[in-house]
């Protein structure tokens, strides 16, 4: 715990020093910017992403940097505030970054992204999963994380493969993620011949799901499967009340529930299947990443956002290397044509994908408080709902 705390303080202190405007490196280095929400509601995602990015930087620099030049990162906190995200992005541009990582949520990511777009500097959101994000900003904006429509399609394919005919989906219109992913699931599920029998809605942070659970119990025909992208605290509250009401319908979740909380839920979470960005099977790149992470930070990794942060830094390095230049338009073009970049969670391809990457989606099952690998899926692109 203590070591973790000191590294966090060091990370925060580094951010403060950077924000104080200390001169950044020498003229021969490459500077990357990260405008993230390291405090506020995005901290649970951007803090781990930053840890992954820094691990990748260590490895890149140890291997001689990019194009033989050392790489450094300027980290600035947006306080999870959309207006501040634009201000911070401009500060990073003024400091001469050649590429920018922006927040995990769509709104601040757009605010930072449009600044980078205007300056012709490529940027990518650390873990926003809304597939329409790059198109909303322009040709200099990229996605990094597994897109919602991709996850929805993989979950639907799995559900149909299990022979489920009728699905109930539970969504919240509070965020694009909790609304769109279940809708993409429903669309793909119906395209594959299933039926969505009902759609429930909840409010994020709602303690009590008894009204929804009572409705599910009264459905005719009763659903064979329930899909939701609720995450904590909503997912634990929902599934506890669902199982307490004696409803044992299988539940499919998405990467938001890839958290120690889910595995500590005990019997109620038994058998829950969820999608995420990768499974650390023995000998995999992700397992090597997990070991390197524990060595650097002194505590085991407990979220996939560290690995996807690492992936993004590796993608940026590959794009600059392929461009052979630190010129913004050249990096953008090279990034847009990347194929099979080997990263911690597998491989990533941007070529012909409109800046929303194709990457593997892993399915995991909660079994006895442990994570069991169901398989890795790359659905046929005709099966993925249009964003």
């Amino acid at each position, binding site marked *: 715990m203590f070591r*973790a*705390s000191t590294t*966090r*303080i060091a990370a*925060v202190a580094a951010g403060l020093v950077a924000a104080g405007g200390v001169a950044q490196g020498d003229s021969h280095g490459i500077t990357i910017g990260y405008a993230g929400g390291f*405090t*506020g*509601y995005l*901290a*649970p995602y951007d*803090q*781990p992403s930053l840890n992954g990015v820094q691990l990748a930087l260590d490895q890149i620099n140890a291997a001689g940097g990019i194009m033989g030049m050392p790489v450094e990162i300027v980290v600035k906190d947006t306080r999870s505030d959309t207006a501040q995200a634009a201000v911070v992005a401009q500060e990073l541009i003024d400091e001469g970054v050649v590429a920018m990582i922006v927040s995990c949520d769509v709104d601040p990511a757009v605010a930072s992204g449009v600044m980078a777009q205007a300056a012709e500097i490529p940027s990518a959101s650390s873990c926003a999963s809304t597939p329409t994000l790059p198109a909303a900003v322009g040709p200099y904006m990229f996605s990094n994380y597994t897109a919602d429509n991709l996850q929805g399609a993989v979950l639907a394919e799995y559900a149909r493969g299990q022979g489920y005919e009728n699905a109930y989906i539970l969504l919240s*219109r509070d965020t694009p993620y909790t609304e769109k992913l279940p809708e993409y699931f429903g669309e793909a599920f119906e395209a594959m011949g299933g039926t969505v029998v009902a*759609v429930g*809605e909840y*409010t994020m*942070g709602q*303690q*009590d799901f*008894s*009204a*929804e659970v*009572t*409705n599910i119990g*009264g459905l005719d025909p009763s659903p064979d499967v329930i899909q939701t992208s609720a995450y*904590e*605290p909503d997912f*634990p*509250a929902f599934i*506890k*009340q669902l*199982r*307490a*009401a*004696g409803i044992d319908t299988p539940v499919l979740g998405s990467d938001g529930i890839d*958290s*120690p*909380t889910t*595995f*500590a*839920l*005990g*019997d*109620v979470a038994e058998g829950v299947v969820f999608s995420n960005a990768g499974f650390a099977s023995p000998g995999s790149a992700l397992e090597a990443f997990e070991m390197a992470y524990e060595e650097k930070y002194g505590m085991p990794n*407990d*979220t996939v956002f560290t690995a996807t942060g690492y992936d993004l830094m590796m993608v940026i390095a590959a794009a600059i290397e392929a461009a052979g230049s630190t010129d913004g338009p050249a990096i953008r073009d090279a990034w847009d044509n990347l194929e099979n970049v080997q990263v911690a969670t597998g491989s990533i391809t941007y070529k012909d994908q409109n800046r929303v990457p194709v990457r593997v989606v892993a399915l995991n099952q909660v079994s006895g408080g442990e994570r069991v690998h169901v398989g890795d899926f790359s659905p046929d692109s005709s099966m993925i709902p249009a964003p």
Partner: protein
Amino acid sequence: MDILIQQFVNALSLGGTYALLALGLAMVFSVLGLINFAHGDLMTLTGYAMFFAIGAGLGLPLAIVLGIACATLAAVAMERVAFRPVRDANTATMLLTSLAVSTILHMLFQNLISARPRAIPVPSWMIGAVDVGGLAIGVIQLMSITATALLLIALSVFLRRSILGIAMRAAALDFPVTRLMGINANAVVATAFGLSGLLAGVAGVLWLAQRGSVDPLMGFLPVLKAFIAVVLGGLGSLAGAVVGGFALAFIEVFLRAFLPDGWLPFRESITLTLVIVLLLVRPEGLIGRRENVR
């Protein structure tokens, strides 16, 4: 009819946690005129105390006791460190102080403990439901209703029978006159904070049992709900806070249960519209007293 009674029980259990939180807010408001927005963070402190206690192998019952004790002590400390120095300043200063305390706590939790949620495992017997006359009542719901009832009874005895309790009720009516009667202001204020911490701790345990994890920002939403409940019930009235908490829960649960599907996206707006309509009809709240204009 069964579904109606079932939803009634659901609303009663949710209303219990709202009432506990709202009562804590109202208690501090009644003596200081301060809405303490750091109140929800006392729930978060309960959660972290439980997390570390369970991690140290102390077992759940002891962790719950420690969690509630931690919230109570933290509330008293909060008053001593942050609010006593600005007690004579105007209410806007105190309001901003409470927001500052809340923000500082969020940053400390995020940077010293973890920005990621921490799991609090709940034993499986707590997750089941008991059958009461054909109604399935969740164990946590039952605990919530029982704990609320016991605490409300204990508090009303305390407020009616003990000197400090009577002093607190008097302070709610007129603090300067209460002090003229020889009542120690610091003792009254510290007791109000301590009790609000105790109530937040109990509400925290009930909410944590449902959500299964503690995270740095978890106190924010409940304190907003409690604030709505306090305003609805009548600012400055302790009974009003309890009634407001239950009223808010009943509106929420019944709207979610019985609104037609097409209306569901608007349930929050409808809830708040109903609250506004109630306040238009009764500007002083459901049980609030009219201000005497002299």
